[in-house]
């Protein structure tokens, strides 16, 4: 199932990153295919977030090449990564509490209607489109409710709906299940399945082993800036992944 589509949506070759004398990443190769959910695991300081930030355009890699949907790309700013179809759902979700769900989904790319020289917000279309997106994600979220009044799961839905707006082809989620209740974790994992169904590749950065094993097709383990394992989920076990993360097992 994972190799059904021959061209990987994201292909990293020999990615390395140095901050001064510190080598944060070394020679990382990684492929992500459409409709695939890849778990990215590793201890703090293993290089996960550096890797994510390179893919998202926050940092430029010191070495190596990034190919997106078959062609080489160079990101200078996060906006460049978003332009080709890479979206990030941040750990703190990056939502404005005082705005409605629809306003948050469309933040920074509002729909407008022009009246001569002035462009006014098109509230109706934005609410309708947001409702559609929440429907696709099967989340019970009203577009004109304030985010302040929402549950953790609904907030995740808003943050994920934002990535659907641009028809992203790769969504990276940073610890989406870290600070929410058990029931809401279920909802978020459901949202990841929805993305997968629609052919979106998902990279899930998480510390929570059960979540990774519940939704991922493949798991990638980072340790000390290097990729130590890259295995289909059914060929590994939580015990093995834990050993790889802690270094009890060097590589697999």
């Amino acid at each position, binding site marked *: 199932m994972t190799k059904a589509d021959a061209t990987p949506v994201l292909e990293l070759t020999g990615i390395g990153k140095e901050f001064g004398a510190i080598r944060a990443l070394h020679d990382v190769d990684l492929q992500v295919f459409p409709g695939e959910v890849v778990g990215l695991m590793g201890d703090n300081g293993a290089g996960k977030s550096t890797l994510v930030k390179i893919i998202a355009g926050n940092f430029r890699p010191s070495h190596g090449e990034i190919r997106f949907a078959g062609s080489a790309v160079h990101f200078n700013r*996060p*906006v460049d990564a*978003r332009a080709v179809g890479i979206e990030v759902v*941040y750990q*703190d*979700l*990056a*939502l*404005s*509490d*005082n*705005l409605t769900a629809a*306003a948050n989904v469309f*933040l*920074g*790319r*509002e729909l*407008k209607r022009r009246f001569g020289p*002035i*462009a*006014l*917000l098109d*509230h*109706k279309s934005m*609410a*309708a489109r947001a*409702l*559609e997106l*929440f*429907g*696709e994600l*099967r*989340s*019970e*979220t*009203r577009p*004109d*409710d*304030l985010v302040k*009044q929402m549950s953790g799961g*609904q907030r995740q839905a808003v943050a994920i709906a*934002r990535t659907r707006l641009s028809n992203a082809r790769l969504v990276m989620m940073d610890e989406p299940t870290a600070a929410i209740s058990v029931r809401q974790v279920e909802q978020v994992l459901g949202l990841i399945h929805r993305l997968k169904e629609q052919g979106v590749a998902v990279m899930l950065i998480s510390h929570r082993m059960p979540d990774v094993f519940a939704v991922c097709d493949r798991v990638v383990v980072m340790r000390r800036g290097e990729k130590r394992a890259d295995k289909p989920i059914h060929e590994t076990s939580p015990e093995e992944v834990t050993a790889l993360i802690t270094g009890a097992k060097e590589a697999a």
Partner: protein
Amino acid sequence: MAMPMESPITFSNVGKIRWWQRGIFASQTGYVLLALAVLLVIMHFASPYFFTEGNMQNVAKNFSFIAIATLGVTFVIITGGIDLSVGSMMCFSAMITSMVMTELSTPGGLGASLFVHMAADGKTVLANVPGLILLVSILAGLGVALIAGLVNGFCIAVLGLSPFVTTLGMLSIVRGLGYVVSNGRGSFPGGPDADYFYALTSGDVLGVPVPFIYLMILALTMAVVLHHTSFGRHVFALGGNEKAAELTGIPVVRVKIEVYVICALAAGLQGIIISGWLGSAPANMATSYELNVIAAAVIGGANLAGGIGGPLGAIVGCVLLEVIRNGLVLAQVSSYWQQTLVGVIIILAVLVDRIRSRMT
């Protein structure tokens, strides 16, 4: 708004928030508006003079004298910033406006030959183009406000200084410049266009004071800008979560500079209007008005932590302050009580809102 079309979602366990629990009904602005209505009724019974046409005109005029600046500072407060320089800005803009007006109207003055000539009697000064001097001098007054706003915005958005410190500095800088340019004496509008100036700042149309008309136009414009343009949306987003605003690609630096410029321009315009009513721009004009302006905004429901506020709240805050002041005078209470009462109301308004948000 009712749910449009056939909803693709069924809401089995997510309740709908009732209309009285959202929007204005659930905001501090709503409560203060209610308090204001009650106060108006009390005033009606307390004093037969309160609802007379003359007194209403007076109230409308007086609150308009701080309300335009309050609209401006509300923009800044929504983004989570503060502008303490509005009082000084009012004075400086007014002063520059009347100085430019006088200078251009004095034959022999700097550039005056372009604007005025002597009448045949050798005494009367006539304008070459009526109203042109007025236009140029008001633009000059707003121009200095624009510059001060840009400096504020640059220091805060680009250099990352704290809004409180930056605008506290600007308060002093601008007030000092006012003393410097006028030698501490202040200035007076003069010349052939002075009459137009008075008509435009302290006149009235069909019994409605013109400052009140300006206020209504500006408030409506502000409501549209805040709620129906992407700039307004970004202003709210910035106040709600600045980091999120940045991550979603909102031009944070530009929006911040823009709100400080808007605030300075509103203060400048306010100052020019006040000087028309006073008939002069003394160097100590509008001293400590920044406190009244910020108090009015906060009473009206603008949240100093950012993310909440609007033109209705700004006006309601100003009206409440003015009605209390006016009421104390009519009730023959010493006007020295006013400040004390205003302080109590600031705390009460915020307290009621806090209690309400704890309850829901």
